[in-house]
């Protein structure tokens, strides 16, 4: 099992969700986050006060997939989330040791 963590532009969330669902993946966890990479922040001005806002709003998707589906899942996210502009986001893949479904007690691949 692998954990695929994708940080994407918020307005791309629905397209990414649809693409992952089309692959037959069931369920994911979404978090609203802030961050920055190469995309620069912006300036906000309130009367005389100017603030440089570095952290931009993003959406983080966590989805755990069977090891064999990782490449397809990553590819689907890239395809759906890409605009070609700086700030499209990043995808990280990491190993998952163990998984349990709370309701049934099923473990690992049958739990995801």
């Amino acid at each position: 099992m692998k954990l695929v963590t994708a940080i994407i532009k918020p307005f791309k969330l629905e397209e990414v969700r649809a693409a992952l669902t089309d692959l037959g993946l069931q369920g994911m966890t979404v978090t609203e986050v802030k961050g920055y990479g190469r995309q620069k922040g912006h300036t906000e001005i309130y009367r005389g006060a100017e603030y440089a806002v570095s952290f931009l709003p993003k959406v983080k998707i966590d989805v755990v997939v069977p090891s064999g589906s990782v490449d397809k899942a990553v590819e689907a996210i890239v395809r759906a989330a890409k605009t070609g502009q700086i700030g499209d986001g990043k995808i990280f893949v990491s190993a998952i040791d163990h998984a349990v479904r709370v309701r049934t007690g099923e473990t690992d691949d049958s739990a995801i």
Partner: protein
Amino acid sequence: MTVGGLRRIASYAILASLMGMALEPSLAQAADAPTPNKGDTAWMLTASVLVLLMTIPGLALFYGGLVRTKNMLSMLMQVFYTVCIVCVIWVLYGYSMAFTEGTTANSFFGGFTKAFLAGVTPESNVETFTDGVVIPELVYICFQMTFAAITPALIVGAVAERMKFSAVAIFIPLWVTFVYFPVAHMVWYWAGPAATVAAGKAVAAASGDAKVAAEAALGAVQANAGIAFQWGAIDFAGGTVVHINSGIAALVGALMVGKRVGYGKEAMPPHSLTLTLVGGALLWVGWFGFNAGSALEAGGTAALAMINTFVATAAAALAWLICENVAKGKPSLLGAVTGAVAGLVAVTPASGFAGPMGAIVLGIIAGIVCYMACSVIKNALGYDDALDVFGVHCIGGIVGALLTGILAAPSLGGTGIFDYAAGKIADYDMVTQLIAQVKAVCLTLVWSGVGTFVLLGLVRLVIGLRPASDQEREGLDLVDHGERAYNY
């Protein structure tokens, strides 16, 4: 005026009668007491409520939207509390201190003859600005009460997010007592039209030695006024009394309370400019009660104040937007709303004196000057006037007070100033008028600046002004009030 002064007037009157120049016309008028016009009364009832709307929820939301989420309720609460405490103090002794004749130093303080509203009944009337026109005294008390309530409420914006509620709770009653009531008396208290007109007619009718006596009587009537009124300073709806007064207190407050924790290092963006717009727009709506209501009658002067309150405000908002667009490249909503408030402040003293074209010029100048005060001067001097009360209300008030002296001129489309003693519009001398305006501005700056310094120092000595810095970081909503503005 002193009791001795009253006796002097009485003796002049007797003297004038003895000289064969009896004051029958004025006596006849006194016997035929005027009754309130229902239209005037209805308008003043409405205007009073409109001015309350300016403060709650108008000013509360305007300010509340500008602070951070954690201080939203503290802002709303400080404004709401101010209204409540001042309303009560006003009828206990505030009205009497501001609008009755003082026994000592009448140029600066009123007396306590109407403390607890002694002698005021539904049948009591007060004069408007026209001889022979009156409104019920109770409605006048309510109208002026709302002015007394909004003025200290303006100050709390400067010390927002870091002055603890207990300190605000003690400071506000002290400030209205020692600063607002005296300043209102100095600028607005006078003997009224009937006495002035009667004394003026007596002078016109008299000759010889009687004329000297009648002139002395007129002088005594004219001396029965606040010091700024005696100087001839004009302030239609409270540019000095409300805006310069609270604006300089705000600056002194910001300096004495000190900067917010993290000021200049952390971002402190407004938490809801949506609410700021709602509050700012309610201020504008309520301001028609404030300015047009200050005519005290439902007539042409109220209409003039109304149109000026429309156009000066709009012009100031546009001027601010243009400044921002030139300096920063983007016109902001906060800029538009702030510009509008600057225009409202500046047109306040001029609203019943300037013509509409003059009001547009006034609005443009106020928008530009206040923009500079809030963005350039404030940053250069580095004080933390959290919500720009000094930059908008004091600077805007001064711009308005001075331009009133210019734009009231009939040659510039203004109304001129009515001379009650002579019974006609006086010849307009702009230089003399400007000097009077400058004197009234300086008087207010000094009285309020020093008064605020002393009173805040006193509160600091007794209970302190600020919460502990970790409490300030947590936010005044939880620390002072035990509640949060938003639970989601």
